[in-house]
């Protein structure tokens, strides 16, 4: 079942003519001509679509929180600042089929009553910005954007804003600050953007993938979307698969397939690269807890783990993780978890905005301590120190970056503590190039 990537390999799909030949912009016509904004919102609510940026918050509910005071403009902002390590789905979608996003933007803006909308694209993706700009111009030329869209009286202007190159600008309030031309520091909440967002006006910020899915929901109805998937995880999800698998890439999966199927079937990842076996998986982008092979494939209850929001988080953080943004990083037994954790910790150290003290100081501290362990200068108390620092950052920061920095470190120690201990007790062996800890009885390759 493919919704977003159904026509993605059609040659010329980035042009509006080919896109429309393949059924594009039908949702705009249907929504604007035959539906009211509330009806569109209602369909999205019915679909059970959950935010695809990482938090998984029901999108229809987010829309319904939007304050609608008289005489105050409302804004829709598309968060295309995808910078999570391991996540590259939005990049792929916008690059290959920009009109999928633009169609979704028009439908969603109509539902929210926004007359100005923005796509905030990660600044490094300049060529994607060019693709989007070109596509938007095509949409203007066809009368799908601008004044009086399709003769309906509804006006919408769509702008692309290149980001300044900071991970933190993917956090919705930091994104809004950046969009306003300020330093990208997250705001204190409340007030939430739904009440006071862009220029202190009610604003909805949604991920590229979530917005792109709305046009299919308008075309086929919320119930059809909800029929896909399992339980409260409805529809399809783009997964960015990377790491030691045979076929890395972006896959659109119906939520509810097993993790095992996703990793090993030829339709998706195609299994672990030849001669190696699965060691660990980061299931939803670098900020979610890493899981060992056993924990990712089966839950505590002994059931096969599914690719759903609920199943992946079953067992809490003790044995579970999160679907997050769908950055699926697979590691085989040649991966040093300490080194991998250092890479993540260094990233968050580099990307912390420095506004609130636990994150500013804590991320740097964790980075330095793991760096010492990795280079053979670890002390026996360092592991407990890391756990404690992670605990003191978690939940005490302004925005979720603190949590995102603390979780991978805490989870790596939770599931691979022996590996950290080995680095501390065997510094000479551990600092040899390519050295990887083998659990007793484990070996390289099958």
């Amino acid at each position: 079942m493919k919704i977003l990537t159904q026509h993605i390999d059609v040659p010329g799909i980035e042009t509006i003519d080919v896109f429309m030949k393949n059924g594009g912009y039908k949702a705009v016509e249907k929504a604007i001509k035959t539906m009211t904004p509330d009806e569109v919102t209602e369909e999205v609510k019915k679909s059970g679509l959950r935010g695809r940026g990482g938090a998984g918050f029901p999108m229809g509910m987010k829309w319904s929180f939007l304050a609608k005071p008289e005489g105050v403009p409302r804004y829709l902002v598309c968060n295309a600042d995808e910078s999570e390590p391991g996540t590259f789905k939005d990049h792929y979608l916008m690059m290959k089929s920009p009109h999928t996003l633009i169609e979704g933007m028009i439908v969603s803006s109509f539902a929210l009553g926004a007359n100005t909308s923005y796509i905030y694209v990660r600044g490094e993706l300049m060529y994607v910005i060019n693709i989007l700009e070109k596509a938007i111009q095509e949409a203007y030329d066809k009368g799908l954007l601008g004044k009086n869209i399709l003769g309906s009286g509804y006006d919408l202007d769509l702008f692309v804003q290149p980001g300044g190159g900071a991970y933190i600008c993917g956090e919705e309030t930091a994104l809004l600050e950046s969009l306003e031309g300020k330093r990208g520091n997250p705001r204190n909440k409340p007030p939430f953007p739904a009440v006071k967002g862009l220029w202190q006006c009610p604003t909805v910020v949604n991920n590229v993938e979530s917005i792109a899915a709305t046009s299919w929901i308008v075309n086929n109805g919320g119930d059809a979307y909800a029929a896909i998937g399992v339980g409260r995880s409805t529809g399809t999800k783009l997964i960015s698969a990377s790491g030691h698998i045979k076929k890395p890439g972006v896959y659109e999966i119906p939520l509810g397939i097993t993790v095992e199927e996703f990793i090993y079937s030829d339709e998706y990842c195609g299994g672990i690269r030849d001669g190696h076996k699965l060691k660990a998986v980061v299931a939803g982008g670098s900020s979610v807890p890493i899981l060992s092979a056993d924990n990712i494939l089966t839950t505590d209850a002994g059931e096969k783990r599914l690719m759903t929001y609920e199943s992946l988080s079953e067992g809490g953080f003790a044995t579970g993780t999160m679907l997050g943004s769908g950055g699926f990083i697979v590691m085989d037994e040649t991966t040093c978890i300490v080194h991998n954790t250092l890479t993540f910790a260094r990233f968050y150290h580099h990307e912390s905005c420095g506004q609130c003290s636990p994150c500013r100081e804590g991320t740097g501290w964790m980075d330095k301590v793991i760096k010492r362990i990795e280079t053979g200068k670890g002390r026996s108390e360092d592991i407990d120190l890391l756990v404690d620092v992670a605990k003191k950052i978690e939940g005490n920061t302004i925005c979720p970056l603190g949590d995102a920095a603390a979780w991978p470190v805490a989870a790596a120690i939770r599931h691979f503590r022996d590996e950290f201990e080995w680095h501390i007790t065997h510094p000479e062996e551990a600092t040899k190039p390519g050295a990887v800890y083998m659990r007793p009885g484990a070996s390289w390759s099958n």
Partner: protein
Amino acid sequence: MKVTIDNITLDVEPGTTIMQAARMIGPEVAPPAMCYYEPLQGSGGKCRACLVKVTAGSEKDPRPMPKLVPACITAVQDGMIVENTVNEAVLETRKGIVEFLLLNHPLDCPVCDQAGECHLQDFSFEHGVSSTRTVEERNTFEPVDLGENIKLNMNRCILCYRCVYTADQITDGRVHGVMNRGDHAEISTYIEKAIDNDFSGNVIDVCPVGALTDKTYRFKSRVWFSKPMDAHCSCDKCSGNVTLWYRGDEVIRVTGRKNQWGELKEFICNTCRFDRKKTSDWVIEGPTEVSRHSVISANKYGANLIHPAFPIAQAARDFKQIDDNRDRSSIEIKSILPAKK
């Protein structure tokens, strides 16, 4: 609205924050504030020193809030129950915050002009632990001058943003802000320029630590050797209400007047602060009221707050013989410590 903080209930106006309500009760209950500064619009929420536990959100919705919330920016709801000093998790988190703030702070208090009136000193003394868990090197920056009278020592900065909000308030454009990210973020005027404003000196007073210091006062005296006096003058730029800091007969420093929470009551102009350093410039009102617990009160008002016997007794108690057999005969230092029992 009724709000209960540490089992004390009081009535407050709608819109009051937890911090304001707690301050109404008194300093025993008020959470510490390192970044929040009531007179500065927009300040607060950054240092996380004032995180408190809300065990009941309101009368209508008595569920506890899942995370600790910053008292300085969280408005009270009717029937809210807040735990500050009585909550173990709050105190534990606060220890962590002290640790984070000191992680890259140089601990150069012996040569820092702020020592004695430093909020970070007070905060770490009241809420921190006496030992350190870090062996990492601290981040360092070069000291810079912000104009001719203000020195910025970024090493000591805890990025509270108070000076940024002050600059925003006194100037039209953005001339003073934060550059870079994370623990290498630094306060800067774009770029190393002076804040060209008659009230720029107030950034010194709002700074909770010794990052921004008065160059006309630097290294002149320790704060506890000087005596604060309230004084005023007729100034055409500001109200002229200041605190003069005397050492002997000499005015060594002029600052704005501060309230109980260390917040400026009003901004003073640079002329009053930097240029009026003669007693004849001022009309003296009388000694500034200083808390008896403040180190500024030491050696004044006849109280003997320092007991030399105490540190010696403590040193003797904690004294540990270190196995060290180097030849020490040439240096001939006599031990001041009593022999270990």
